[in-house]
């Protein structure tokens, strides 16, 4: 009896205290500091100011925001375009369950591997004397090695490479949940393959598409080491910006201001996503 009575307040207390100490307070701290000024010696001077946000509204920073969103959008789109047919093929055309499982594990292995390692591996492939160039030279498509590393091309490829499993897994879950009878019903009513895809499969896998897009988009927004490694520290995205403020420029208030904007964006996206999906399906994304 006693055990039961203690367990309930204990867990609730546990949950609330963890949430407060490690989530609420730090994030309030972030938001709070964004309204303070920078101090040479102690990082922050407790003087209220809107200066940080004003500075962010200037052209230079707006450009960075815009660049980052464009990159994130681009990466998300490419991932979706690559993944959707892939998942359709695996889920739809392969009947054997254990083959499917095996193929899925093959996708999961990269998902569990450190993205740092995978990014580094991509460097090996893209560099001037790397695999891709050697192959293209060997086949005769080009006469001189192309600069494929340390530019936007590399950054996008690297981000897509790192994010692909995050698009594939939610899509796969959505596809597996799709009742095959709907496809039969559509065929029974005269739909050809194209119609079945556009009128039945895509609408009914919408939740997977949305989940995948959010995961990839948000994941890309915060990236800093991938652009740094693959872009050669030349291109600045939001992630690099924040990192620089904290470790190089020591301008914490500015850094937290950027982070706050990012957080608000994340929350807004999540709210929009939640409002538009039915409760039961919403969170059954990956697990």
């Amino acid at each position, binding site marked *: 009896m006693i055990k039961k009575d203690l367990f309930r307040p204990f867990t609730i207390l546990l949950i609330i205290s963890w949430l407060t100490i490690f989530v609420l307070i730090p994030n309030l701290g972030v938001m709070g500091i964004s309204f303070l000024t920078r101090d040479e010696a102690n990082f922050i001077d407790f003087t209220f100011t809107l200066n940080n946000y004003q500075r962010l509204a200037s052209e230079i920073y707006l450009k960075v925001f815009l660049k980052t969103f464009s990159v994130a959008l681009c990466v998300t789109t490419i991932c979706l375009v690559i993944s959707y047919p892939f998942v359709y093929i695996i889920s739809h055309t392969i009947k054997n369950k254990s083959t499917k*499982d095996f193929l899925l594990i093959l996708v999961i292995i990269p998902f*569990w591997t450190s993205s740092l390692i995978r990014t580094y591996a991509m460097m090996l492939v893209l560099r001037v004397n790397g695999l891709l160039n050697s192959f293209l030279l060997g086949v005769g498509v080009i006469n001189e090695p192309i600069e494929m590393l340390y530019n936007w091309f590399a950054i996008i490829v690297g981000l897509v490479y790192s994010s692909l499993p995050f698009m594939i897994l939610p899509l796969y879950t959505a596809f597996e949940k799709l009742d095959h009878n709907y496809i039969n019903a559509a065929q029974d009513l005269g739909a050809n393959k194209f119609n079945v895809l556009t009128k039945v499969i895509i609408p009914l896998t919408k939740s997977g598409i949305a989940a995948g897009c959010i995961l990839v988009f948000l994941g890309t927004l915060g990236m800093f080491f991938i652009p740094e490694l693959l872009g050669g520290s030349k291109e600045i995205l939001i992630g690099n910006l924040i990192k620089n403020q904290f470790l190089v420029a020591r301008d914490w208030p500015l850094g937290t201001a950027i982070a706050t904007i990012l957080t608000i964006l994340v929350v807004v996206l999540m709210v929009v996503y939640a409002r538009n999906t039915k409760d039961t399906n919403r969170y059954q994304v990956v697990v």
Partner: protein
Amino acid sequence: MNRLARLYSILVYVFLYLPIVVLIVYSFNASKYGTAWQGITLDWYKKLISNSGLISSTKNSFLIATLSASIATLIGTLSALGLYRYKFRGAKLFVSVVYVLAISPDIIMGISLLILFNLVHMNLGFYTLLLAHITFNLPFVIIIVISRLRSFNRNLIDAAKDLGASEWVVFSKIILPLIMSSVISAWLLAFTLSLDDVVISFFVTGPNFEVLPLTLFSMTRLGIKSEINALCTMIFGVTLVLIFVSHFVFRRKV
């Protein structure tokens, strides 16, 4: 399956694996900067093993990973159970927050924790790193265990109670064994995430406590070297082992 479809899916797999395969292959390349192929060697692996800095980084990483995974799994499982059993105000909000945390960019968590530690004047080092890792692992543990609990057949609990089981028995003899595979899976995921984490560790660790991903990161910034290839290959090997263990323990759904 039609030929075009087969070709396409193979291409995707090639894209996913080619860089990794290249990495593994080049880790045996005798050329120092991994340029032209100069024969097979284990030199880089030998160098790694004798690099004491790397060894201590590795030990540190494993220590943090084990501790943070275990603590996070403990707290996370308890939290998930609490959320499942008890309806309290804000439970829904809590779950939403957990999901937001899980998908938020790591960098936000990194700097927010940095600020926290600064606020309480804590020195950056082992303890801050540990706390940070527990914090970012918790949402994943909670999500995995709660998903399993939600798909739980309540009839089993009712049947047990009908046969006279007390709350404690229901928990220990029915719920726990059935969620055990999810708990283990959550532990493995937390362990892996902790081993691989770069961004959060970047912000909250101090100069006295090096962890592997950060060592690797600073190495990679200096350019491509064959020792890095060997190191990456080894880490990848460990991950593979973890995945296979996870799959066979957790065979229901991967």
